[in-house]
């Protein structure tokens, strides 16, 4: 994204009133916004111009937000996706993240919150792009003991096994692995990885630490890689060289 050009956002929402309000406020915030009313149109719009960020309603006629999400990820599009949902069941939330959405908001949400999330997602995407650009210069993998991370390919190998992570999990792991032995407080992790401080009922740091442990550790209750430093935060064990 060249500097000076406003980030482009696609809003896919079947409720006209909400769609118009989103467009109005996102434009007021300085983004270039396109809006569609259903999932099929959302997917089609990405054929012409890829947006920098997508805001998808989960429940849309024809093709719902999850399917759009899946289809886009299948095409290798990595633009951040913010999912809007009227359901507050956990299943929906987890699915949204597992299937490639980067964040979600439950209706009714506040516009301020939405704008904060959009900003954070775009910033994170920017950082990622910068990291990738840098990685072309130094395609060096990050190694810590048995852990090997290839930032450019967003691949992780641990004890010679390739392990899949969601975008946030990967970013969290990368953050730890980039500073092995360093203790991060939860607030620091939220700022560094999520890019903003969550407010609401989302379970974030602990959940993601737990997921990382579940995927990496033999016994998640006796972690060996990502350690808890009581009263301070978490750190990744520094492998002896």
């Amino acid at each position, binding site marked *: 994204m060249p500097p000076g050009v406003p980030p482009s956002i696609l809003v896919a929402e079947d409720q006209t009133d909400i769609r118009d309000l989103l467009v109005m406020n996102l434009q007021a915030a300085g983004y270039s916004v396109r809006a569609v009313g259903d999932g099929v149109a959302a997917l089609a719009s990405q054929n012409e111009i890829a947006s920098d960020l997508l805001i998808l309603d989960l429940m849309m006629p024809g093709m719902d937000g999850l399917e759009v999400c899946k289809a886009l990820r299948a095409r290798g599009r990595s633009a951040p996706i913010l999912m809007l949902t009227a359901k507050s069941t*956990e299943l929906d939330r987890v699915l949204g993240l597992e299937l490639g959405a980067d964040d979600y908001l439950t209706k*009714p949400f506040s*516009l301020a919150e939405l704008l904060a999330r959009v900003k954070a997602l775009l910033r994170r995407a920017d950082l990622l792009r910068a990291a990738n650009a840098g990685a072309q210069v130094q395609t060096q993998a990050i190694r810590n003991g048995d852990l090997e991370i290839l930032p450019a390919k967003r691949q992780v190998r641990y004890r010679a096994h390739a392990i899949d992570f969601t975008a946030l999990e990967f970013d969290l792991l990368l953050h730890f692995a980039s500073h092995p032995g360093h203790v991060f407080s939860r607030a620091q992790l939220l700022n560094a990885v999520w890019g903003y401080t969550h407010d609401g009922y989302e*379970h974030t*740091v602990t959940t993601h630490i737990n997921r990382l442990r579940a995927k990496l550790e033999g016994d998640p209750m006796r972690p060996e890689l990502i350690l808890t430093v009581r009263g301070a935060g978490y750190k990744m064990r520094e492998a002896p060289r």
Partner: protein
Amino acid sequence: MSVRVKLALTIFATGVVTALLVIATVLYAFQRFEREMTFQRATSFLMRITSTYDDVLELRRRRPDEFQAWLRSLVLYEPDTQLYLLDREGLVLASTGKVRLAPGFKVALGPVLAAMQSAKQDPGRTSFVMGDDPERMDADAVVAAEPLRGAAGGDTAGYLYLVAHRDSGAGSRWEALRSTFALPSLALIAGIVAVTTLLAAMVIASVTRPLQRLTEAVATLSKRGLEEGSASTTQTLLPQPTRDEFGQLTSAFEMMLATLRRQWSALRRLDHFRREGVSNLSHDLRSPLTATAACLETLDARWAGDASHAEDRRLVEVALRNTRNAARLVQSLGDLAKLDEPEFRLHRVDVDVGELLDDIGIRFAEPAGRKQIAVRVLPPDGAARPPYASLDIELFERAIANLIDNAMKFCAPGSHIELSARSKSAQVDVCVADDGPGIAEADLPFLFDRFFQSRQNVAPATGEGGKGLGLAIVKRIVELHGGEVTVDGAPEHGTRITLTLPAAPR
């Protein structure tokens, strides 16, 4: 005492009583038989005398000195028999007894004469008579009498009176009876009673077996509840209805079960509709509320810093606050309906509850700080085992957040809220304690009821909404985790809410 034992005891008692009655009856019959035999023997003996000797009175008259000896010789071979010669009025003229009777002693002849009369009319009847024994002065001997006619025949001139008394007294008779009767017969009777009782017990057991099976079936059904037991499993559980009272009971129970099941499913259907209705309503209200809130937020942002719209902004703020309250309430209702669904499943993860509390503490530090309330997470107590529990992290955080929200609502600036997690054998105690105004004791039992709001906690209508459901959601979440919620607190002493959760198995 079980019905079986009661029945067996009843039958045993009945057997014993019956045996005793039979013995008594037999004894009575034996006695009567014995007396009748004595009487008949006596009567025939007397008749033999009267037919042999034409005129006994004449004999006495002729040889009064030898008469007594003659009389005695008559009864020489009739043991226990005393003969008396009476005149027409019953006056004793002579006797075989050794006892000297008072002169002029009279025997009451009435009963014996009446018996003789009735015996003549109806020969088949027993006719023995208990009459006067002049020697013993009681009416407890078998007596017989035979009228004596004078030489010229005609009227009764006197009577030969026979007393067959038993010298062996009641005691010795009882002894004799016991010796003959006791051992073999009593053993036999006891044996019969025992066998009868045993048989009865077997009959009772077989008869009450359906009852027992029914009881077992009912117990199983009670344990399982109506939901699990479908109609088919009930049929296999219940004994096959027989044609007796137990069969009727089984059928009646089946009918009751069917009715209950019908009503239960009707209730469940209704409850399902209610939940679905609330859920749908909550879902359908979200979009309009989102749009309304977004409109108001847009307006608010547009008029920010514009002095000419200061009044409008104030109105928009009120509208926005109320919309958000409505939104929260709608969300809570929908969530509660969701959590109430029988199909709802937790996504459990084994997690260090202390770490989670740290997380939540960080989240609330900032908003609480704005109200000058300190949120503190107590460090672990150094127990050997960190407080691990298998939790649905989102729901657990939701519960703790609701509790902190609640505490923050009622705590004055300068208050403290403390979070702690302690591992206790097979459970983890999670506490949210504050030093706020506390809760009236009368309110404690209802604190976690839906839409209950403590009187002193009633906020103005424009206050934050949905809080009538916050604690109900906490309770439901803890219930789903198989734990329980307890509240300690008194006015002026703050509130301590403890969630007791099962610890994660290790």
